[in-house]
């Protein structure tokens, strides 16, 4: 007679030392049940043990760690044996590590519940498919570009989605790089150029994701593109149109240092033609006929095997920290305004008051503050230090003050940078700036700003008149991240950054198979970290998409015609349009169904059921009994 088999993993001491496994074995023991114990079921030796012992089982219950960690391993091993029924009871997380007093008792109940579920599932709720070797990358910043390059190098077809008209993201506006102060564009622009040469990369600018269905290995995504009014495939980037435009600055333009694609975009809010006038100058000068005023919003449906999310971050909107006066006082700027000015060269010309005698860098503008950003963004201290050194280079006579809380300079070269700044006579004051005020302390300071702070090292209040205040805010996820998370079913953490499946060992993976994270969308990162994480994501994606087959959930939504009242509420309730009215009543489209169970709980007549995923009363009884 075939038996149910239970495997209990000791997980070293993690489970074995906390849960009384011999007692568990005694209590769960039944005639139809065989129970095995192993010190490390996930080890090669443990897997071999598992395979050997599982042979001929009616079904297998594994009491070990969270399903995400090794569920796939056990499933694969059982599949090799032709065993379809597997249930996992995470007694490590749910009993051994969390039970207050009696982990054994709790483990027994959870295992009983697992057993109850096991006895009712029919088979693997999975099927094997060959993944599509296509990758969608959302976000055309440093992370997206890196990932696209890497993925195309290993032979994947890549769609690179960018919301703006041009690729590059935040990296475009960097001037120098932390900590060695090398020129950002010298490092970054070769990447952009190689992207233009890369095979199998299709760039979709002014585009955003609006819909997704399907499953890992074969997603169907819907992309919405805003009109550019210039045909990318025709334009050669000669820029004649830019000078032909009567508007100043031109309404047809590429307002970035390294436009990729090198195709201008028409701003319909400034273009005379869109204001009802008959101007056609750009169209007339264009040798390629690329100008296309009739361009409209369009939608495209793409089939991709996987998705890399690389939506990045943005600085905290520091105008919310009202006592620093950003947006109100013209001499208060942010680090990023400064960085932009450096990179575009405007710094040397008109925009700053001259002479620049004293500058204050206000660190943690809103950061580590319960009212704004409760966390530290890690990279801003380095960015601020780097920018102050550059400023010193440009204005050697300016006095530069850093108001900081803790200087957090990452990497082995961080300290060197700090020493360099000290050597250039850049001053560091430890203390939070309470206010930036335009009211002068003494008459000679008229027209300057006053920084009010406290030096917490010498416990003295400071009132410092300055010519320029540079706020250094922390980082938050890029706009639209939450909407994207909802669309993709990703899990944002408290701060709104996407959570990887496991922070340490799987930083690029998400809770959803076939979707990976690259760059600063999972937390603030500087360029080098961004690139590294993008490469990791590309590797994960390439690995997944080049497999000969993957197992995907195969939902077993059952519709019972006789109980169905044909009210069709389920059709509206299904988020994936997997249910359609049909002559015989209802049709389930299994390729669209995600087995979420929303229709099951919506059906008043109980005509729908999820055979293998539904929660059962027997499980309840097991934990309550």
């Amino acid at each position, binding site marked *: 007679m075939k038996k149910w088999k239970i495997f209990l993993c000791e997980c070293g001491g993690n489970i074995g030392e906390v849960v009384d496994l011999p007692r568990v074995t005694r209590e769960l023991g039944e005639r139809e049940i065989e129970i095995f114990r192993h010190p490390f079921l996930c080890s090669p030796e443990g897997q071999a043990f598992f395979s050997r012992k599982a042979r001929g089982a009616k079904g297998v219950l594994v009491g070990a760690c969270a399903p995400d960690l090794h569920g796939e391993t056990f499933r694969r091993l059982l599949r090799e044996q032709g065993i379809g029924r597997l249930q996992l009871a995470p007694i490590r997380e749910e009993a051994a590590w969390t039970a207050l007093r009696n982990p054994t008792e709790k483990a027994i109940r959870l295992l009983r519940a697992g057993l109850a579920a096991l006895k009712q599932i029919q088979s693997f709720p999975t099927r094997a498919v060959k993944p599509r070797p296509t990758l969608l990358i959302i976000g055309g910043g440093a992370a997206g570009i890196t990932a696209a390059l890497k993925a195309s190098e290993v032979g994947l077809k890549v769609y690179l989605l960018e919301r703006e008209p041009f690729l590059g993201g935040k990296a475009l506006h960097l001037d120098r790089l932390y900590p060695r102060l090398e020129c950002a564009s010298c490092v970054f622009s070769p990447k952009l150029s190689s992207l233009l040469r890369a095979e199998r990369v299709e760039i979709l600018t002014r585009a955003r994701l609006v819909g997704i269905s399907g499953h890992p290995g074969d997603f169907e995504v819907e992309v919405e593109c805003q009109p550019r009014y210039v045909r990318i495939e025709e334009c050669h980037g000669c820029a004649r149109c830019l000078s032909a435009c009567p508007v100043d600055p031109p309404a047809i333009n590429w307002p970035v240092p390294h436009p990729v694609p090198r195709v201008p975009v028409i701003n319909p809010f400034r273009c005379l033609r869109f204001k009802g006038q008959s101007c056609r100058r750009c169209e007339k000068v264009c040798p390629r006929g690329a100008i296309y005023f009739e361009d409209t919003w369009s939608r495209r449906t793409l089939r991709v095997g996987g998705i890399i999310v690389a939506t990045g971050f943005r600085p905290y909107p520091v105008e919310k920290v009202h006592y620093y006066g950003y947006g109100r006082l013209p001499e208060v700027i942010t680090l990023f305004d400064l960085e932009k000015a450096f990179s575009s060269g405007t710094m040397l010309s008109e925009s700053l008051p001259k002479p620049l005698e004293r500058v204050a860098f206000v660190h943690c503008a809103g950061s580590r503050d319960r009212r704004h950003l409760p966390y530290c963004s890690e990279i801003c201290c380095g960015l601020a230090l780097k920018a102050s050194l550059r400023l010193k280079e440009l204005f050697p006579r300016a006095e530069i003050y850093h108001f900081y809380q803790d200087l957090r300079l990452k990497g082995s070269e961080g300290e060197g940078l700090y020493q360099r700044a000290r050597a250039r006579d850049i001053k560091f004051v430890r203390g939070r700036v309470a206010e930036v005020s335009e009211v002068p302390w003494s008459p000679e300071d008229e027209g300057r700003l006053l920084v009010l702070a406290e030096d917490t090292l010498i416990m003295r209040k400071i009132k410092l008149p300055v010519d320029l205040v540079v706020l250094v805010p922390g980082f938050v996820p890029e706009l639209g991240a939450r909407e994207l998370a909802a669309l993709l079913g990703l899990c944002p953490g408290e701060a709104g950054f996407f959570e990887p499946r496991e922070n340490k060992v799987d930083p690029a993976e998400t809770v959803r198979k076939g979707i990976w994270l690259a760059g600063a969308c999972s937390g603030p990162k500087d360029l080098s970290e961004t690139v590294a994480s993008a490469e990791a994501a590309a590797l994960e994606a390439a690995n997944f998409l080049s497999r000969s087959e993957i197992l995907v959930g195969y939902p077993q939504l059952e519709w019972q015609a006789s*109980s169905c*009242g044909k*009210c*069709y*509420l389920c*059709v*509206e309730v299904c988020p994936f349009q997997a249910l359609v009215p049909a002559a015989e009543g209802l049709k389930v489209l299994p390729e669209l169904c995600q087995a979420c169970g929303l229709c099951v709980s919506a059906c*008043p*007549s109980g005509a729908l059921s999820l055979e293998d995923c539904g929660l059962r009363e027997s499980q309840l009884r097991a934990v309550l009994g």
Partner: protein
Amino acid sequence: MRLALYNALSCAGCDLIFFLEDLPEAFWNDLEIVFWPEVCENREEILSHLPRGSLEVAFVCGAIRTKDQERLVLSLRERARKLVAVGSCALYGGIPGLLWEKEEEGPRPVTEIVSCEVAVPGCPPEPKTLKASLEALWEEKSLEETSPRPVCDECPRLRRPFRINQLVRFWGEDFSQGDCFLSLGVICAGPVTKSGCEAACLKAGYPCWGCYGPLDRQAGERLLSALASGVLPAKADEFLENLVDPVGTLFRFFLAQSPLVRLRKNLEDEKDSA
């Protein structure tokens, strides 16, 4: 055929005297009425003189609330070879079961006290339903219920995918025909109710009240779940505001058998013992 009939706690509308014109011919063959207060003069004592199994059939047409009623039903069960429970009071507690909302205890379904060979749902059962059940009884067919179908099966109203904009009270709009009541926002128990009535109320321009009894034990919760699934999220507050009588609306005919009312009793007992 020796027969007994007891109305128990009911409106007496399920008494077989309301089905006389619809009873199968076999009913009248050698009919000997032993106990049926509405049509014969025998008193209760007569039952105590009868040996076990001496009645061919006994009908119970209502719910049970008092010890006396329970005793009588138990005594009928003992003497009858076939016990037939007629009507929703007997099967689910019926409308009077709503007393459970207001009192510690209310009437209980007969089926909870004794086993019944045949169950005839409805408030009252349609003649067709009763006739089919009785014929099955006569022919000794086992009445194993095929999985019950919802009232919607017989409903003539138009069905198409919908969301509920808001709950609409049934007080006067012209609903005589058209779309499914639920899609209009009128709470209709059709989808959670057993069919067999040929959707009589729906054909008369009324939503289903659920008199044929729940499709299964979860019917009340299911209907609530469906309504909450259908309502537009932006209208959720309004929806809850307009759900003025959740108990009556969701459990109209079967509150007496809902685990929730038992649960309340358990909780009270717990409190008492504490």
